[in-house]
């Protein structure tokens, strides 16, 4: 076995306190205030970057983010197999709770858990706004 990767080094994601504060504010203002029950910013490895909820959720967020990142990766791979770049809408609808996934950038996903009071249209709008703001912060 020979190594071809001389320049390999770890690529930890490090966000500063101010960036995380701003991201959390966005998650609260854009999404929780709009009626989303719980929202997670995670990376594609399943780590939680930020999490906000309405105070009434008792989800196991570590398992949720591990499964969400794996689910996203599986669906993404399926898209490639059938010749699509990606499937744009990733959404699981339940009787009371639904889950919406969106890609924030090449590293991050936004997972929103919401109930019947929020329409999918409103959610998508709010998610799109939040993603735009988050991307501005991450790029700083």
């Amino acid at each position, binding site marked *: *076995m020979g*190594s*071809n*990767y001389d320049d*390999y*080094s*770890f*690529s*930890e*994601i*490090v*966000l*500063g*306190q101010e960036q*995380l*504060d701003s991201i959390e504010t966005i998650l609260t203002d854009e999404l929780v205030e709009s009626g989303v029950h719980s929202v997670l910013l995670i*990376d*594609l*490895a*399943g*780590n*939680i*970057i930020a999490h906000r909820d309405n105070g009434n959720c008792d989800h*196991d967020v*570590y*398992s949720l983010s*591990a*499964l969400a*990142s*794996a689910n996203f*990766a*599986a669906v993404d*791979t399926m898209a490639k197999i059938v010749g699509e770049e990606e499937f744009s809408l990733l959404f699981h609808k339940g009787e009371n709770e639904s889950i919406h996934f969106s890609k924030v950038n090449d590293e991050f996903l936004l997972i929103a858990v919401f109930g019947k009071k929020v329409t999918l249209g409103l959610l998508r709008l709010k998610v799109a706004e939040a993603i735009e703001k988050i991307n501005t912060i991450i790029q700083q």
Partner: protein
Amino acid sequence: MAFVNMKSKEVQAKIVFYGPGRGGKTTNLEYIYGKFRERIKSEMVSIKTHGDRTLFFDFLPFDIGKIMGYDVKVQLYTVPGQVKYDATRKLVLKGVDGVVFVADSQVEQRKKNVQALKNLQDNLATYKKSIFKVPLVLQYNKRDLKDVPILPMEVMEKDLNSQLKVPSFGASAVTGHNVVPTLKKIISATMASMQNVLK
């Protein structure tokens, strides 16, 4: 890749148990789960077939306490070892920070161990990671077997570790022998690789 939260002083790192099918990866996690039950707040998640083979992964979040002033959470994963699940195996490896390679000590599995290690090298390479640089620990599992022939430790070292030269343990995931030392070793190797960030 690990995530460092400077605000809550928390580090999340992903450790993956890799190796041939039926080598004992899931059994390692089950032992850890049983042993540290009171420290592990959530359930172990297993996406598996009816026959108890891992289909996608097992997942166990483990809070290991403070290291260098950071609250360290390791996320333990296993991959499906069966050859046919390579696509999902590759997905689980995404963002990995440390790997435990669980080899099967049975003489019969000798070739499979070597193939699985080669597969690890190939799949790490798809993420531009080198098997020679990722924090890695080898575990020669099933040392407890009495009814079937097992490979001498030296043979396993020669087969799997002659070039890698990483820490290795003879172990039994069923009895728990050397399961925790394996885990401690990979955690310390993983944290050491992140030292530059955790100043």
